[in-house]
């Protein structure tokens, strides 16, 4: 059985100029209840990896540099 790769709009936006994941910060990854944020090994920044956001905001509120902005997922806008 083969599967397609689905395309979804990223709704958790990370400002690369502000994100300090390179210095070891993992706050947003830790607090996200649905565990959908991960370190991008290529650029050393955080990114949304699953379209499973509850738009609840712990990631945005706890980020020490205010690098995250959560948008309402496209299907609900």
């Amino acid at each position, binding site marked *: *059985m*083969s*599967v397609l790769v689905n395309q979804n709009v990223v709704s958790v936006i990370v400002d690369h100029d502000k994100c300090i994941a390179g210095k070891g910060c993992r706050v947003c990854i*830790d*607090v*996200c*209840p*649905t*565990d959908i944020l991960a370190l991008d090994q290529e650029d050393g920044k955080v990114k949304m990896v*699953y*379209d*499973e*956001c*509850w*738009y*609840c*905001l*712990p990631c945005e*509120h*706890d980020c020490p540099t205010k690098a995250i902005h*959560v*948008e*309402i*997922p496209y*299907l*609900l*806008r």
Partner: protein
Amino acid sequence: METRHLEADVLVIGGGTAGPIAAIKAKAKNPQLKVLLLDKANVKRAGAIAEGMDSVNNAIVPGFATPEQYVKEITIANDGIVNQAAINAYAVRSYAMIRELDEWGVKFEKDETGDYAVKKVHHLGAYVLPMPEGYDVKKVIFRQLRKHGVQVSNRLVTTRLLVGEGGRVAGAMALDSRSGEFVVIRAKAVVLCTGAAGRLGLPSSGYLFGTYENPTNAGDGYSMAYHAGAELSGLECFQINPLIKDYNGPACAYVTGPFGGYTVNAKGERFIKSDYWSGQMMLEFWRELEGGNGPVFLKLDHLADETVTRIENVLHITERPTRGRFHEGRGTDYRSDLVEMHISEIGLCGGHSASGVWVDEHARTTVPGLYAAGDLCNVAHNYMLGAMVYGQIAGEDAVDFIAGKDFAGFDEDQVALERQRVFAPLLRADGLPPTQVEYKLRRMVNDYLQPPKVTRKMEIGLQRFAEIRADLAQLKANNPHELMRAMEVYAILDCAELAAQASLYRTESRWGLYHYRVEYEGRNDAEWFAFVQVKKGADGRPHCFKRAVPAYLYPIDASERDAYDRLRFEEPATV
């Protein structure tokens, strides 16, 4: 796929609202004990209260209400099917819990004299205590966990309970959703606090994670308790909430009601007297939506500008803080626009309706050593404070239960079988993506279980669910995260089947929309003044049976009994 072994005297599963209090209270009662609290997410920000709460929905504050009044109100709101002793166990501890939270640093609204500013939202009494600065509640509780020395373990997805000799609980098994390890935890007592079954119905947007409930609460606890042999109760009494259309926040009666906001139909007419969430209110709401008078709106545009600002400062900051962003995106301003409302997906939840794992007034399930608290247990309309109080009751009773007891011995086969079940989707070469199976399952839940309930539809639904059960043997996960989602599909499917079975069994209508069966209009107290229980039979299939409603502590007068059936304005109230 290593196996890690842990041990605890008291194991608390679910670190949202009820769980942390259970752990704190167990540790406070006996600091020598090893109390372990684990969560699928991160306890610091896990559960329904992660971003605070708008209000205590059911505060019993002296001077405003008594336990007796409250127990009677909930008895009437829940159409008589309650164990009053269980509601009362919450009611008599409600005020002490508010005081304790206050001492810990949780902020509640107070008047000029420093008294709690309780508001009337329910049909009969006054129980709503606003928390306009309630966003810190989880942080405050987390500090207490640290202070009491509770051991915390995050990202552990519990999948099954271990059952020991004599049917006593012996611990639990979990998947580490980061490392992919299998974890076996032995415990002398287990407190299950895994919240509602929030991923049962599909929101009408089709977005899997747009649920009213925190989507980490997929119904795992219902499934685990069922497979451990516990009785579940009221699974036909669905949770359905009035929400903002397309946004999963309450509209919200508890916040705007005291400021003068209310619900209107398309003609601008008020049609319900009390916006307090009950099945009867939801039935009137649904009738208005479907009966040609819809859509239904929340009306705030008649309020003064500064009143609206105060409302925004609550609704857009605590609980569901993206609400303002949603309105902004659609250009909705409470000052000039009505807010379109809709009906949520269905779910199972003790805290909002009455569907949960059966517990008595000591939070004990029917499995020795196994407790349930919070939205997972069947104590009706218990909400946030009820979750905390039941956490307290469970944590303290568990300490008594384990006194002088050792770990229960258990059959190791359970571990081997569960390991096999959990890791199968990872080991399979290819197969069905868990999210796609979940989508189909939840879409079928909407099609066949959403009230009004129709016998033939529910029967077809059960057939479809059985076909999806066969599909589980083809689930494919590529990593531990997807494996967690695959395991959740198992739990959602169990909940869907149990909800259908319980709904078919109760051949009457009760709780307004929650159990509205078109072929059996109206309440039939002669036959159905009883709880409907469901339990796993010796044949491995769900068995439904009745459990008598225990004699009331506070009898309900015939004149009060139907108060919640008179929610509709006789004549449309034009405003």
